């Protein structure tokens, strides 16, 4: 594995954008950063700016107002970039499909690399989605094993 691929697969930095959802998925994305789930052990870091990140984690259905902004955020990311659609709303519009102010899922606006379904998906499922995404990077080799954290309920 060359250095660049190694850097990309060992520390994918994420940028999070909510395009109009109910926040449930956003809470689970942030919960993934907190000690119970701790994404940073996989090298993930939540960055504020899309220019610093490799993966755009998008939640919520695309509303008419956010569609152009989502496009702009995606364009600002440097290549190679990946998009993770978190939650059924980001995948297909979810429960808001057909509403007058909703365009639909994320793939109506930008190309999506990985869909994580759920309403909302658990933090471990979101982490799993990011890890599977890393595995798709050419030259990535094997991906880390995402095991459920011990203690608590089922994570």
């Amino acid at each position, binding site marked *: 594995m060359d250095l660049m691929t190694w850097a990309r697969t060992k520390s994918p930095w994420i940028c999070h954008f909510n395009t109009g959802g109910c926040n449930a998925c956003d809470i689970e994305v942030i919960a993934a950063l907190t000690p119970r789930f701790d994404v940073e052990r996989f090298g993930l870091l939540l960055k504020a700016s899309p220019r610093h990140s490799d993966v755009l984690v998008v939640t919520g259905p695309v*509303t008419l*107002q956010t569609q152009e902004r989502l496009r702009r955020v995606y364009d600002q990311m440097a290549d190679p970039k990946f998009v993770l659609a978190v939650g059924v709303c980001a995948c297909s519009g979810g429960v808001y499909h057909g509403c007058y102010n909703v365009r639909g899922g994320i793939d109506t606006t930008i190309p999506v690399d990985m869909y994580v379904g759920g309403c909302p998906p658990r933090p471990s499922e979101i982490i799993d989605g990011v890890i599977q995404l890393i595995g798709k990077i050419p030259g990535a080799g094997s991906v880390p094993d995402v095991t459920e954290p011990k203690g608590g309920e089922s994570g």
Partner: protein
Amino acid sequence: MMSEQVAGLIRDMFPGIGVTIPRERRITVYSTADRLHDVLRGLHGAGVTHVTTITCMDKIERGMFELLYHLWWENNLITVRIEIPRAIPVIPTITTIFPGALSYEREIQGMFGIQVENIPDPRRILLSDEFPLGVYPLRKDYEVK
């Protein structure tokens, strides 16, 4: 205060006005658009400060919009109901009496096309920039495509 007391106070303040008590802690006051300001000003003078929200309903079969002004006072939700014609949906602003009602007036303006006269901020509040002007999604004749 008990609902009967509040209802009695309102009846004394505005003789002839219709007041009903659907259940405890809920009072409905039936008013008209031209009397709305007097009623709200009178209630404000009696101590009402909190506007919970303004509900609008499209009574398309009767050609009217029904507006409900929900006010919370003395452990009672007082709903002042008025109707305005759908063809000329004009209502004066209540922000001169209740400044906190601005968001709700902007909402009914954008969603139903009700013209709120002298509203301090007439911009659309919820609909996107791309949403066509003059189209009001919560009206009954708006079809969701």
